[in-house]
């Protein structure tokens, strides 16, 4: 009896464990964190000004080597802040916001402040968006490990002068895509046209079918830096049946009033947009010594929508069957749009071949998102002479020569037929003229054919064109005159 109760209690306890602790067996190895505070600052002040110090803590059991690096902030369409790490951009960031100290070792359980100094603004600017990267690397060497990890935390400081700012924005569009099987993504693009960072408000996505609203969802707003277009995404798991829909995105942004963007889409299945399924088939590579490698690949689309893909090409020289360390040439093949059910062949030239063997690698993302790599090994051919080239041309274009001959024969036949037709017409006209000479208004020209035997030659002509002629001797003419009399 007791054991049954105990079993039930154990089962209940197991069921009561929240799903997040599914990874707890892994999490037990995590002990402490590397942390900073504050994470973000929205500051209105006049530089130079000292900011409240940031606090950096290490609660891990290992000492950490910490670097503090000010960076200039940009923003990606996803909303994530981006930063440049070139020496010039890092120097520019330091000139706006300096940190002290810039590197230190943080013992386990220790924390310390980092003072930040907003020094100035870029000339004629009223705002500065500067981040500070706190980079931690365990002091213990990670040698011998295949994966070494560096941890970075980005503190964001959006600073501006006091005063009034123009806050304006617009919607760049609403795009519907397939985020995952049975998951639709509605992406609303918001562009900040104002002078300062701001957040759009009242962002909603509504979906209509046959004029009836079938779905309405709100989007969570966040900061958009000036001049940046940010994409706010709504992933929809609620199933919409196949059919045609219209999605309307609405938002407000500062003094821009109500903003609207619209998009129509069709579903071929429940929450299923038409999609492309591009597969790269046979890869062919070859080439002559002294020339480039000729690359050719066949692409087929087995999906329900047109699509394009890019194939990355790397050409290696093979030495004793092993590829060289570095590629001798890299390239990229763009397929262009391939219609659903269609096949396309794409060709390109790559690198410069010397005598030897080569390996061409072509990699692309397959429809499942995995990386596929195709391989083609080939030997560079010796260049061909003129005769060999002609032979190759004939061999490669077997149908070309008969086709040309056929075309020439056809042209000759047509010319002959036309000539015969025109001669027949002329002959028929001459016959008609001969049968009705009185109506022909002949012009007559006497020509002494022979001096010894006088004769008459009559030429019938109309509009300058000779239609026919008659010739008669003097005796025949005299006989004809006598008959007429």
């Amino acid at each position, binding site marked *: 009896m007791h054991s049954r109760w105990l079993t039930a209690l154990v089962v209940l306890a197991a069921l009561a464990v929240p*799903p*997040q602790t*599914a*990874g*707890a067996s*892994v*999490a037990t*190895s*995590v002990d*402490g*964190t*590397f*942390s*900073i*505070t*504050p*994470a*973000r600052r929205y500051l209105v002040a006049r530089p130079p000004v000292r900011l409240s110090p940031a606090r950096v803590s290490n609660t*891990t059991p290992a000492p950490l080597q910490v670097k503090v690096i000010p960076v200039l902030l940009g923003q*990606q369409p*996803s*909303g*994530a*802040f*981006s930063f440049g790490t070139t020496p010039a951009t890092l120097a520019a960031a330091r000139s706006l916001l300096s940190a002290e100290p810039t590197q230190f070792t943080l013992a386990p359980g220790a924390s310390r402040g980092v003072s930040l100094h907003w020094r100035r603004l870029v000339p004629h600017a009223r705002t500065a968006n500067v*981040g500070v*990267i706190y*980079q931690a690397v*365990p002091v213990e060497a*990670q040698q*011998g*490990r*295949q*994966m*070494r*990890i*560096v*941890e*970075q*935390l*980005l*503190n*964001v400081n959006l600073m501006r002068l006091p005063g009034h700012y123009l806050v304006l924005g617009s919607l760049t569009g609403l795009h519907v895509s397939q985020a995952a099987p049975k998951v639709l993504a509605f992406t609303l693009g918001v562009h900040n046209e104002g002078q300062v960072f701001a957040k759009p408000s009242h962002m909603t996505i509504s979906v209509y079918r046959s004029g009836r609203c079938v779905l309405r969802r709100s*989007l*969570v707003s*966040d900061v958009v830096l000036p001049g940046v277009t940010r994409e*706010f*995404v709504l*992933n929809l798991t609620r199933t919409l049946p196949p059919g045609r829909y219209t999605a309307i995105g609405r938002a407000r942004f500062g003094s821009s009033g109500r903003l609207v963007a619209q998009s129509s889409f069709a579903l071929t299945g429940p929450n299923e947009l038409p999609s492309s399924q591009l597969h790269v088939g046979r890869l062919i590579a070859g080439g002559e010594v002294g020339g480039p490698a000729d690359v050719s690949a066949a692409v087929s689309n087995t999906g329900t929508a047109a699509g394009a893909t890019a194939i990355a090409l790397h050409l290696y020289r093979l030495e004793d069957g*092993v*590829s060289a*360390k570095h590629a001798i040439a890299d390239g990229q093949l763009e397929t262009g749009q391939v219609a659903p059910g269609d096949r396309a062949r794409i060709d390109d030239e790559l690198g410069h071949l010397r005598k030897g063997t080569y*390996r061409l*690698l072509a*990699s692309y993302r397959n429809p499942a*998102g*995995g*990386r596929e*790599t195709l*391989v083609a090994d080939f030997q560079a051919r010796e260049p061909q002479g003129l005769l060999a080239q002609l032979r190759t041309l004939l061999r490669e274009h077997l149908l070309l020569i008969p086709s040309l001959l056929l075309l020439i024969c056809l042209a000759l036949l047509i010319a002959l037929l036309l000539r015969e037709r025109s001669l027949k017409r002329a002959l028929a006209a001459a016959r008609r003229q001969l049968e009705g000479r009185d109506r022909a208004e002949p012009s007559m020209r006497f020509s002494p054919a022979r001096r010894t035997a006088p004769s008459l030659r009559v030429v019938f002509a109309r509009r300058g064109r000779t239609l026919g002629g008659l010739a008669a001797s003097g005796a025949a003419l005299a006989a004809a005159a006598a008959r007429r009399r």
Partner: protein
Amino acid sequence: MLRMLFGALATLAVVLTLSVSPAIAGIGIQSSSQTVTGTSLGVLAITAVPVATFTTGFEAGDTATTTGVLTLIDTEPSWSLSVQDEAGADPGHMVAAALGCEGSESELEDPLDVEVTSALGKAHSAGTVGIDGEPQTVSSATNQILSANIFTANYSQKIEPFEALRTGCIYSMTATYTLQ
């Protein structure tokens, strides 16, 4: 009977005491109220447990896999976790060690892939991402605070059949995770 009477009296006494005590407390005492408010300062924290080694399939024609753990704290509901390889040459590719790798490929053909997942409903995983020199977002959210939440990093390294890997040669790379 007597016991019941005592019980009723005791109950009455307790009720009276409780109802009167605030008035008693106020007699002869000056009170003042002070509102104390606290505004939470944003906190960012990260811990990535380094992965010692790939456990399976680190050979030509196979795909090696291993798992790492990230612990994240972010009090901003909108956050993003990215990964990149800051190596100067051919970032994202595991490189052979300087010693013990003669005749082996100097670096692997395919970049290292990583997928970061969590049990959080509002955290969006970017799926499998090939690591390269630019920061690649691996997980993000627009409305999800992180309070020491566990994320699992699933690494996979495809090794092509034509790649020559010498026994004992160690390939490695450094992944930089940035939380903002």
